[in-house]
């Protein structure tokens, strides 16, 4: 039996590569870009999970085939590690471009924190619905915060966004994998040594960061009342 299923957006890419390099026994990976999963991208009909787009169905089928899995996503007996909803850079960029502002940020159109939370809920309804579907199916679910690659001007919106997402997920019983204390500087920004080495990549993290995430995830799995018996199987992290 696989130890976990990785279901993510582009932030899952480095987790996938690092998990492979660590010889972890897992399935899944990056399924689609975050922007394709912000809105409703799946449905659950008669208890069966189905991606709504052809691309989504192909990508998920590929991940199943790679791992030799069969059956339905919601029937998998393993914890889920997800990055959905933490495409924070995407939200922050759109928010700034639209000239909206919250307390502490600059912009023409001020919105209250409650309205901001409603905006996040509306713009990420696919993500929240996905987590809810997993939890309703009784899954042990873990979500990884974004790598925190932002500049100081974005800080209030960035943090407010993740606060809303974390609050929503925590209320559902989703566990948050939070490695900010090990990977960020005094301002809360990802330290340069954990950034993607690609010069044109201003968003993602690197393998060192991913390793810390996977180690934290393993520790959380080990202490999980739901999965205490099946920690991630790797000499590197066990």
């Amino acid at each position, binding site marked *: 039996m696989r130890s976990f299923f990785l279901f993510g957006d582009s932030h899952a890419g480095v987790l996938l590569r690092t998990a492979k390099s660590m010889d972890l026994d897992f399935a899944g990976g990056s399924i689609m870009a975050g922007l394709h999963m912000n809105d409703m991208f799946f449905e659950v009909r008669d208890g069966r999970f189905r991606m709504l787009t052809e691309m989504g169905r192909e990508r998920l089928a590929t991940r199943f085939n790679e791992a030799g899995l069969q059956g339905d996503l919601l029937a998998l007996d393993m914890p889920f590690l997800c990055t959905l909803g933490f495409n924070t850079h995407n939200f922050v960029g759109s928010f700034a471009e639209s000239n909206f502002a919250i307390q502490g940020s600059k912009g023409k*159109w*001020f919105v*209250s*924190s409650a309205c901001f939370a*409603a*905006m996040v*809920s*509306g*713009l990420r309804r696919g993500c929240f619905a996905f987590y809810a579907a997993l939890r309703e199916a009784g899954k042990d679910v873990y979500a990884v915060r974004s790598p925190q690659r932002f500049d100081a001007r974005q800080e209030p919106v960035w943090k407010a966004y993740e606060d809303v997402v974390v609050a929503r997920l925590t209320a559902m019983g989703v566990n948050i994998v939070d490695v900010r204390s090990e990977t960020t500087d005094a301002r809360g920004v990802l330290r340069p040594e954990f950034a993607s080495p690609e010069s044109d990549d201003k968003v993602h993290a690197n393998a060192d960061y991913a390793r810390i995430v996977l180690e934290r995830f393993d520790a959380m799995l080990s202490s999980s009342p739901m999965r205490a018996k099946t920690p991630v199987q790797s000499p590197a992290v066990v």
Partner: protein
Amino acid sequence: MSHPYENLPPEAFWRSGVADPEPLAIRDLWRPKFQIRPTDAVATAGSCFAQHFARALAERGFNWFEAEPTPMGLTEEDRRRFNYGVFSFRTANIYTVAMLRQWLEWAFEVKKPPPEVWEENGRVFDPFRPTIEPEGFASEAEMVASRGATLAGIRRAMNQSAVFVFTLGLTEAWVHARDGHVYAACPGTLAGRFDPELHVFKNYRHAEILADLSAVFDIALDVKPKMRILLTVSPVPLTATASGHHVLAATTYSKSVLRAAAGEATLGRAYADYFPSYELITGAPFKARFYEDNLRSVSPEGVAFVMDTFFRAMNAGDAAAPATPRRPAAPAMTQDDIVCEEELLDQFNNA
């Protein structure tokens, strides 16, 4: 011997103008002083009934001015909960002319808003728009920032609109006994705490409303000399009165005074006009057919009749066939779609 009545048009006589025609076929009830072109930016504010104006303008392809745009991603339900897309700026309903004057004086820094806030269960409410946020604000700073955005929205609306439509709703209000500022609703009803030493009832008189309208016109024209102003009076009766009179008599007083003030304020002013929403709903030929069973809410048929009359006078083509809408067509507005704080007073009715 010739006299002026010999050559009057049919609509000048009650029989041919009102009694003989089919009620819905009554025409020429309004001859606008100025035309509003679909490209003219139109800002709207006022009582609950003004929301129909905003919606109809947007749906018929007119340029309804939204000074505080709806934040991206809000669901339709949340858009309504947070009062976006209801009026041109997020003041919520402005029932009295005094309240409109107060908002304009704050926006254009004639006066400063008082430092009053209402706190309840750890949330902060704006005394001058207590229902603008469904759960109140997280902090006083957030409330002040939000109100600042609305004041900026008012400035944008008055600067950039060609036409300002205001629907007069009530003569009754509650004011601060010492400082005189006007509340949106009686403190303690929607939020806040009523203090009989601080909060006093005010039933505005004709002369006071006229003075407030005059001040509103002055500010609007000072900001934009070519601004045109269209006044209407809401045909929606009072939910409750604190005047001590029967609510029917209080409604008659309120609407009569508002109608008279609106009419007088527009006399001799080429830039200001009165549109007869009130007559189109309450007039004798319509025999209260446009009211819902509660004899208060205006039915979708009534709203359509009013707006068709408006667009017909604006030469907006076939009034029944909307031009290309600037926003997606939505189902006809029902009473549930109208944001109406005054209506919430009925919850205190013990009968």
